[in-house]
């Protein structure tokens, strides 16, 4: 049997994987601070293949996260902020310190300032407490002012190299990744939506579908070749 059929199978599986990621990007276009992810593909020699084999299969091996800025929506809500440039806010996520660009700030019943529902870290290294009965005001430098006095500043960081996605618009540095403090400020009264665009997703969706069909065509051709071999056997 022609083993090229497995190359076709690997290609089809890779395209299906790509569609999964497109579906995720598209379903999150309205999620604040969401960053689109794109699977990375790599060619490989099937295990046990001869070194001279001309058949090279493909598989998804990693996920790249696109950290570019998303669409900014003006809300005029004084507690909606977007860090300038590509800086991230540090928050206490469910699994430890994480970073987010979801700048929808709220105050929890105990008076702790939250960003996207997670306690946000100040430059002081602690979470930011808001006294009862007061409303914090965020200034352009990222300072949290309560009744005219700046009590703390939002701690902002740049994420470099590898990034791991933790869900809920939270990101953390992956192996070899680094977190560098950033000196930028914030834009107030705006919120950053996802950076996945419908155009990009549609084009890659069409691409994935067509390449999937090509792979299916290849599998079918190999099947026809196999059928011919069987027919030749019958003729004898």
């Amino acid at each position, binding site marked *: 049997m022609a083993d090229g059929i497995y190359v076709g199978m690997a290609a*089809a599986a890779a*395209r*299906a994987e790509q*569609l*999964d*990621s*497109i*579906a*995720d*990007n*598209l*379903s*999150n*276009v*309205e*999620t*604040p601070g*969401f960053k689109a*992810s794109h699977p*990375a593909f790599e060619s490989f020699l099937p295990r046990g293949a001869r070194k001279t084999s001309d058949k090279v299969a493909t598989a*998804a*091996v*990693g*996920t*790249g996260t696109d950290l570019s800025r998303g669409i900014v929506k003006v*809300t005029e*809500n004084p507690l909606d902020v977007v860090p300038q440039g590509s800086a991230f806010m540090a928050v206490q996520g469910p699994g430890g310190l994480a970073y987010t660009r979801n700048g*929808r700030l*709220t*105050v*929890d*019943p*105990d*008076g702790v300032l939250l960003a*996207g*529902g997670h306690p946000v870290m100040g430059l002081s290294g602690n979470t930011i407490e*808001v006294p*009862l*009965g007061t*409303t914090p005001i965020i200034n352009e430098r990222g300072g949290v002012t309560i009744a005219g006095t700046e009590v703390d500043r939002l701690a902002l960081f740049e994420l470099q190299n*590898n990034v*791991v*996605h*933790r*869900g*809920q*618009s939270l990101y953390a540095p*992956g*192996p*070899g990744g680094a977190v560098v403090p950033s000196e930028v400020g914030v834009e107030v009264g705006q919120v950053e939506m996802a950076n996945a665009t*419908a155009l990009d997703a*549609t084009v890659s*969706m069409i691409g*994935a*579908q067509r390449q*999937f*069909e090509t792979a*299916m065509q290849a*599998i079918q051709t190999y*099947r026809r070749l196999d059928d011919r071999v069987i027919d030749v056997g019958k003729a004898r």
Partner: protein
Amino acid sequence: MLRSLYTAATGMEAQQLKMDVIANNLANTATTGFKRVRPEFQDLLSETVIQATAAGPQGGGQPVPLQVGLGVKTGSTTRSMGQGDMQNTQNPLDLAIEGNGYFRVQMPTGEIAFTRAGNLRVDESGRLVTQHGEIIEPLITLPPETTALTIKSDGTVLATLPTKSEPTELGQLHLTTFTNPAALSAMGHNLFQPTGASGQELQLRPGEQGAGTLSQGFLESSNVKAVEEMIDMISTQRSYEMNSKVIQTADQMLQRLTSLR
């Protein structure tokens, strides 16, 4: 590929819920004291297909993980607590709150609720009540012979009586603030109930600690902006369509797959 079918379905569900919220906001553009609601979306935890590992001494390792996100969910619906526009009504029983406070009212069942709708009325026994007859706390009773009612910005209620030249003080209106007003639960009839997450209630005199001041003869209209809602509606519809396209594409690919045999 089956993953993408379900992922796109979460997207469609989220957009559908957003549409329901927009419809409710638009239906309440003329409701006194209504605060617009917005759904907050969160991405679901990613499925990690291959874990990232640090490179060994010979190099190698998996520098980035292979993660596939599994769609979106609605985390919560939040009320935007922004001030609505002030509408001049000239009616002495209309009160607008300029600030964060709420009127505390007692419902016929004896339960306590909160409202920002200041279109008050006087009931048959002279008590200050809301449109729906919930009694304003603390109780203010107007003498039947009252000719004019003055409510000062600090909440002092004064009545002009035919027998006296000076207005008589009837009582003091209070406002209640919450640490996290976005967590109040709406009960309909413009009423809100505190929840575990809304935090501590503070009973204040109008003008104290951000409770806001009262404006007699004004009403706070809803803070829904029709243009914003319309734009949201367009983008919601398009996102819904895009997600349904993903389902279609995944279906076509599955169809192609099953036609192999």
